[in-house]
């Protein structure tokens, strides 16, 4: 995971795409602000940054957000907690498909407003069917509809994550508390991870995200909801800027039906443990061996 690896990967990408496509892919480079040096752009991997370099990077990002988006924000590097392994469960008996969770994610995580981007896709499913590939994410009618049930799908924070394995530059990895994180400054935008994810959980920033100043959530995490640059991949982080401080994820708080249960899998008294021990649980595409941290259950 050295500087060289990434440069080599960029070169390989350039050779693969051909010169003009490479120039196009590198377009964002030309939009540097005057005072952004090549070194800053090619800053080291998150895991190798010294605390000073990280603090410097954060100051730069805060300044850029102020200049480009007109909003004062605070970006923090919030570390995982000892003895905490996150888990999330969702009751399919209760979810009504209202998409309030997807909307809360949109707002909390400073998603591009034009694309209505969200890390959650709520699938409308035929009762009796379990194939998420047949689910419909575009339904536009009153919910819940007859004969249907609703299955929100977001990053499953797999313990055996295919996206982590395919990344040629290790821009994405598993954190100690189970979150699969992305270093947005290290990602080269090859989208291998997006193709590898069986849950379609990753999103690519085709354009520079547009968020009006007044709508920007100023409470930002370096590895989570800071505004992502164009040309990189992003994903759900279980709102780590909230959950690593004990708060609930935004989607859970927004859910009007209480379908969502979040907590520490290592805490035997936690709600998530009660659900895992007492409900009928399943994980999506279990046969792939991804070992998700996201569980679906039915009320019995």
């Amino acid at each position, binding site marked *: 995971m050295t500087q060289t690896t990434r440069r080599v990967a960029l070169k390989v990408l350039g050779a693969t795409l051909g010169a003009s496509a490479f120039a196009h892919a590198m377009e964002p480079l030309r939009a540097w602000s005057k005072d952004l040096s090549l070194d800053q752009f090619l800053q080291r991997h998150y*895991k*190798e940054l*010294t*605390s000073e370099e990280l603090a410097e990077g954060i100051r730069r990002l805060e300044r850029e957000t102020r200049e480009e988006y007109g909003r004062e924000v605070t970006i923090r590097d*919030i*570390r*995982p*907690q*000892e003895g*905490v392994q996150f888990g999330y*469960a969702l*009751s399919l008996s209760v979810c009504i498909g*209202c*998409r*309030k969770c*997807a*909307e809360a994610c*949109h707002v909390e995580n400073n998603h591009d407003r*034009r*694309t*209505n*981007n*969200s890390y959650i896709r*709520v699938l409308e499913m035929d009762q009796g069917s379990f194939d998420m590939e047949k689910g419909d*994410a*575009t*339904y*536009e*009618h*009153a*919910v819940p*509809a007859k004969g249907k049930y609703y299955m929100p799908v977001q990053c499953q924070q797999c313990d055996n994550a295919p996206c982590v394995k395919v990344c040629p530059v290790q821009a994405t990895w598993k954190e*100690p508390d189970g979150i699969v994180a992305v270093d947005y400054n290290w990602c080269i935008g090859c989208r291998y991870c997006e193709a590898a994810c069986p849950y*379609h959980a990753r*999103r690519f920033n*085709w*354009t520079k995200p547009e968020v009006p100043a007044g709508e920007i959530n100023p409470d930002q995490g370096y590895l989570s909801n800071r505004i992502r640059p164009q040309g990189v991949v992003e994903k759900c982080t279980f709102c780590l800027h909230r*959950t690593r*401080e*004990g*708060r*609930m994820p935004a989607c*859970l*708080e927004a859910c*009007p*039906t*209480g379908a969502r*249960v*979040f*907590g*520490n899998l290592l*805490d035997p*008294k*936690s*709600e998530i443990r*009660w*659900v895992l021990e007492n*409900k009928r649980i399943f994980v999506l595409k279990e046969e792939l061996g991804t070992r998700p941290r996201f569980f679906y259950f039915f*009320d*019995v």
Partner: protein
Amino acid sequence: MHASLHLPGAAVILGLLCVAHAAGCQDRDQPPGLRPALDATPIASASVHRPDKLSGVSTDRRDSLGRPIRAACVTCHSLRRPDALPTSTAELDEFHVGLRFEHGGLSCASCHVIGEQDTLRKADGTLVPMRDAMQLCAQCHGPQLRDYANGAHGGMNGSYAGGARVRNHCVDCHDPHVPAFQPSMPVLPPRDRFVAAPGTGEGAHR
């Protein structure tokens, strides 16, 4: 472990350790230290939200800020005592007219007490204050109560650990007269490239 953290001496020592740690750890080839875990799940500090609808009804009037004006039950009920509870909403001719009721085969008297607008009656005749309506619901909805007690039913806000939490009351989400969720339009229609017609969506392949 947790108890010792409250000792100021221990805190100072920990603080010094952290400073020393940070100084010796400039290079992050080693994984940086983890944050100490928060306190265990705060069941004790969880409170249940107290919904307005347990103490009044909304009127069609609005205040100067445009908020709907609510009337406490006692506003009308202190002036007038109903003679008898109707058996169905169809019999309401003066007050609460048009109230929709779809909650099994219950009748008004299954829960309400004549002349006691702030009180409910359980099936065994025990009176419970309106604010304890959950006890009334629990008589029939045992599995939901069990799940609620274990944090697996009902929405909430706040912390999953180490802080306070406010949990929804049954009637925050369910209208006791029509408890099933009524169909409503979903929000945030997706407009990403997976769902738009090929080539038309925002960010479609170019």
